[in-house]
Structures are given as C-alpha cells and as structure tokens.
C-alpha cells in the first residue's frame, strides 16, 4: 500500500466515518492489486493506453483492413472446403463498365454540387445567427435549428417525400396559385434528391460556420470599414478568409456524409439518379456471393472521398489535427 493511501485511510478514520473510497484505498486487496499492476509510470501508462489502443486497432482499423483483404479474394464468404485465391479482378471490373463508373462519377459530382449549395444556403443563416442575433437569444435559435436534426434520416426523408409528392404541399400551393394545371413531378428526380440531401446535411455545415463566425471579433470588420472598405470588400477580404477553417470543416463533413447516404437516394431518387451507394449495396443484397466486388468498390469509394477531402483541406490551408491542442 502506498503512503498516500495510508494517509487517506488515517484521515477517513480520524473523521470517524470511513468513506466508501477510503475503505477502497485501505483494503489490502486494492493495495496489492495497485502494487502489482502499477509499479512504474511506464506500467501505469501502458495500462491506461491498452484499452483505447486495442479498441482502435480492433474496432476502427480492423473492419477497413478486412474489407481491403476481402476485396482481393475471388470468393467471400468462403464456401466449405474451399481456399479463396487472391485476384485483382474485383478491382479491375470497376473500370470499363459504364453501369459502375456512371453512378460513381454522379455521386462525386452530386456531393460536390450539394456541398457547395449547402455552403451558400447556410452561410447567411450562420452569419445572421452569429452577428445579428443578441447573444442570449443565439442559443435559443440554435436549439430551434437543432430540433429537426435529432429526427432520423428515414423520418426526414419521408417528410420530404410528403412535401414534394404529386399531391404534396408544394404542388398544392402551385395549383392553388394557378401556376400549374397538372402537378409537377418533383419526386424521383435529381431535384428531390438534392432537396432531401441538403435537408439532411445542412446542420453539419451550419455548426462549424456558426462557431467560426461567432469567434470572429466584430472589431475586425469595423477596422476594415475605417480603412474605407465597403460591405462587400469587408466580407470578401476579412470575414470570408477568417472563417475558412469553419468552411473547410463544414464542407468536408457534408461531402463525406452526403456520399454515404443509401436510403435517401433509394426513396427520393429514380433510375436516372442511381448513386454509388446503391451500386455497392447491390452486391450485398441482390447477389449474396459478390461481397469481394462490393468490398473493392467500397475501397475505391473510400479512397477517393478521403483523398478529395484531404486535398480540399490542404487547399484551404490547414493541417488535419486542429481539434488537438
């Protein structure tokens, strides 16, 4: 038992009441365990680090490594008594097939466009919230914006289906206003999918933008104004560059998240909007024995999206670990 523990016990006993923690420190078993396990600082650190390191390797890295491994196998899950052979075919089958490459490119173009659209839509919203609303009201309004985002992907997708359907609210309004005679078929198009994805992801853009704008002292813009800069110049030369960190993280998040949606494109999109997530999922649901191809395609998508996100962050001029001091 350590000297410190003895002192603690002594103090607890002197008080006349041995606390739960005092008795823990005083118990012989705890002392022996402590002495056996944590003899040196290195040992203590190793004990503390073991769980996170093992978890990260097994649970975070493991699935990705195994997916990469399976992508080079000729059959998976293995049938009984068969040793899978290694092959590059799963990877090469991607190139040269229009039905694979088209959804892939479509997903990238879509995600990029929607990320930009989300940025343009949410920047004024975040700006208004951070710069024009009184501080005590900011939290309240932010909370108001948060509520829809606690509702899941599926429920919100369903809500968009009701909004845009042929008998939906938008068409009802349009026909009431006498603008259209027949309902406009919004659903199952790029439009409905775009509206849905922006609806789902805008918070991931809004929050980083808001925190970047909120941190920005208003004196900067005032100084620029004193030096003769107009409103637009102030925005372009001061506010925008100083919030690029928020823009970078918001865009990265929205891009990565929007490439990963599966249910939303299935429900809101049509045959002309098949995204890569649907292509990949097909190898797991329709044809059960094509896991290796699905794994290879997932690897292609993962590498492309992470590479694009990485390049983007570099271009925005920030190294990765801004969250870590």
């Amino acid at each position, binding site marked *: 038992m*350590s000297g*410190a*523990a003895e002192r*603690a016990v002594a103090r607890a006993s002197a008080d006349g009441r041995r606390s739960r*923690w005092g008795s*823990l*420190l005083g118990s012989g078993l705890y002392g022996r365990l*402590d002495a056996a396990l944590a003899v040196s600082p290195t040992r203590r650190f190793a004990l503390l*680090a073991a769980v*996170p390191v093992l*978890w*990260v390797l097994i*649970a*975070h890295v493991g*699935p990705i490594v*195994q*997916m990469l491994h*399976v992508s080079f196998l000729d059959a*998976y899950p293995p049938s009984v008594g068969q040793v899978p052979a290694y092959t590059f075919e799963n990877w090469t089958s991607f190139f040269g097939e229009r039905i694979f490459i088209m959804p892939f490119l479509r997903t990238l173009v879509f995600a990029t466009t929607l990320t930009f659209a989300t940025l343009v839509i949410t920047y*004024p*919203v975040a*700006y*208004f919230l951070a710069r024009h609303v009184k501080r005590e009201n900011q*939290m309240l309004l932010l909370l108001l*914006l*948060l509520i*829809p985002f*606690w*509702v899941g*992907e*599926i*429920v919100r997708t*369903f809500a968009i*289906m*009701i*909004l845009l359907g*042929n*008998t939906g*609210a938008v*068409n*009802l309004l349009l026909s009431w206003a006498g603008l259209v005679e027949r309902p406009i078929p919004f659903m199952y198009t790029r439009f409905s999918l775009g509206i849905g994805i922006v*609806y789902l992801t805008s918070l991931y853009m809004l929050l980083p933008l808001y925190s970047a704008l909120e941190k920005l002292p208003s004196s900067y813009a005032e100084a620029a104004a004193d030096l003769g800069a107009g409103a637009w110049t102030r925005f372009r030369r001061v506010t925008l560059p100083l919030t690029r960190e928020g823009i970078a993280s918001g865009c990265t998040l929205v891009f990565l998240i929007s490439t*990963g*949606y*599966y*249910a939303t494109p*299935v*429900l809101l999109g049509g045959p002309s909007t098949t995204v890569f*997530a649907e292509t*990949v999922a097909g190898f*797991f649901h329709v044809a059960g024995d094509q896991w290796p191809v*699905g*794994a290879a395609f*997932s690897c292609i998508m*993962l590498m492309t999206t*992470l590479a694009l*996100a990485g390049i983007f962050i570099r271009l925005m001029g920030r190294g*990765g*670990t801004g*969250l870590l001091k």
Partner: protein
Amino acid sequence: MTRWTRVTMSVIFWAFVVYLFVPLVLMILMGFKDSKFIGFPIRSWTLEWYVDVFRDTEVLGVFLYSAAIALASTAISLVIGTWCAVLIGPRRFVGRAALFALVCLPAVIPGIISAIALRIYARLLEIEPGMLAIVLGHAVHNVPFVALVVLARLATLPASHVEAARDLGADEIVAFFRVTVPYLRPALIGASVFCMLLSFDDFIRSFFLGGYQPTLPVLIFAKLRSGMSPEINAISTVVLVLTAVLGLWAERSSRRLARTKPSGAA
C-alpha cells in the same frame, strides 16, 4: 452593414427555419388524415392511426428492440470514448496525433462504406447479423463523438483540481472517479443522449448488420418501400416527439451543468 442586407439576412434565416420545419409539420398533419391516401387536401381528421400504432405489438417490439440497442451501444461508446479522451487529452506521448486520428476514423467514413466494412468484419468474427452486431456497430460509430465532446470538456478542467485530490491522499484512480468524472458530467450526459439518438435513428448500419428483426428506421424504410400509409406518419410522429423531448432535455441539463463554475462542479 446596411439595413438592406440586414433585412435580407433575416429573411434568409427565417426561410431556412421554414424549410427545416414545414416538411416535419406536414408529416405530422398527415398522420391525422382520415384516409389511406397520403396527400393533400385533407378533408377529415382521425386518431385512428395512432390507436393502431399503439395497439400494434409488432411496432412496440421493434421500438423496444431499437431502444435496447441504443442503450447498450451508448454504454459501450461512453466508456471507450471517455477512456480515449482521458488518455489523449492531458498527456503528450509518441503517436498521440495518430491515435487521435484513428479514434476519429469512424466519424469520417461515409455511412454505406462503414456499414459494409462492419458487415464483412462481423462475418470474420463470426458474429451473426442481429442485435449484438448492431450494438457493436453503433458503438464503433459513436466512440469518436463521445471522445470529442469529453476532450473539449477535459481541456477546461484546471490541473490544480486533480493535484489537490492527489495531495489529499487520493491515488490516480480515486482522483479520476471523484474529481474528473463529476467535472465531466455535463459532457457525459450530452454525449450519451447524442449517442442514443444516433443509434436510435441509424438506418444504414442497422440495415446491413441486422437479422430478421428490424429496428425502427429499418421498419419505416421497409414500409415506405411497400407504399406510403398514414400509419407510417403516426409511427414517425411518435419517434419525432420522443427524440425532440430527449434532445431538448439533454441540451438543457448539460448546458445548465456546464454553466456551473469549475469550483462548484468539483
């Protein structure tokens, strides 16, 4: 800032609020429509769909199944995420940045890829599709969020608090449970509710890792694919109300706790 831009901005802001809320309000309204057909106009109203949902034991079972998954996966990610944050936050060691990046990894992998990777991995570990697979899948996905929230709170804990506890005779473990954990409480409450909502709302991982028993989002998805019916509106509305209440409660309590000064919290 001119008056004109100010007005434009507030118009954009409120238009955005309308964009967020109108679809959900419409969805709630449709749940009270007295017709099997979803769409406008609504001519008569009913509570029948809600009565059906509350009578339906299948829906209740699915709801409890999803809630159990949310609780179990949250418990795991809370422990692991906090552990990671406590290791990474105050210490400097070789590979710290790399470990931090790996802790955050599941948060930046697009949903479909994460689900597929976990499905393949579950096969390797011989975990059958079902509750255990979903719980572990959700836990993996939620660990980064817990770690980030706890890291942020940990950064504001004055080192003197822990040192004082050590001086008073507590060893590292006792100091952790009696000083650090109480200080982290608002972060832990916030993170656990956030994890529960993420798990409860998750579709893609539950869809790929699940067996025959669906979770609530998977059930709604299946029902939507076979045709819209006001019953789905009623289920979705119940989910919406529950998640909103839980989220608001968590936001309120973690904010109130976070406002207490370090001296009060420790």
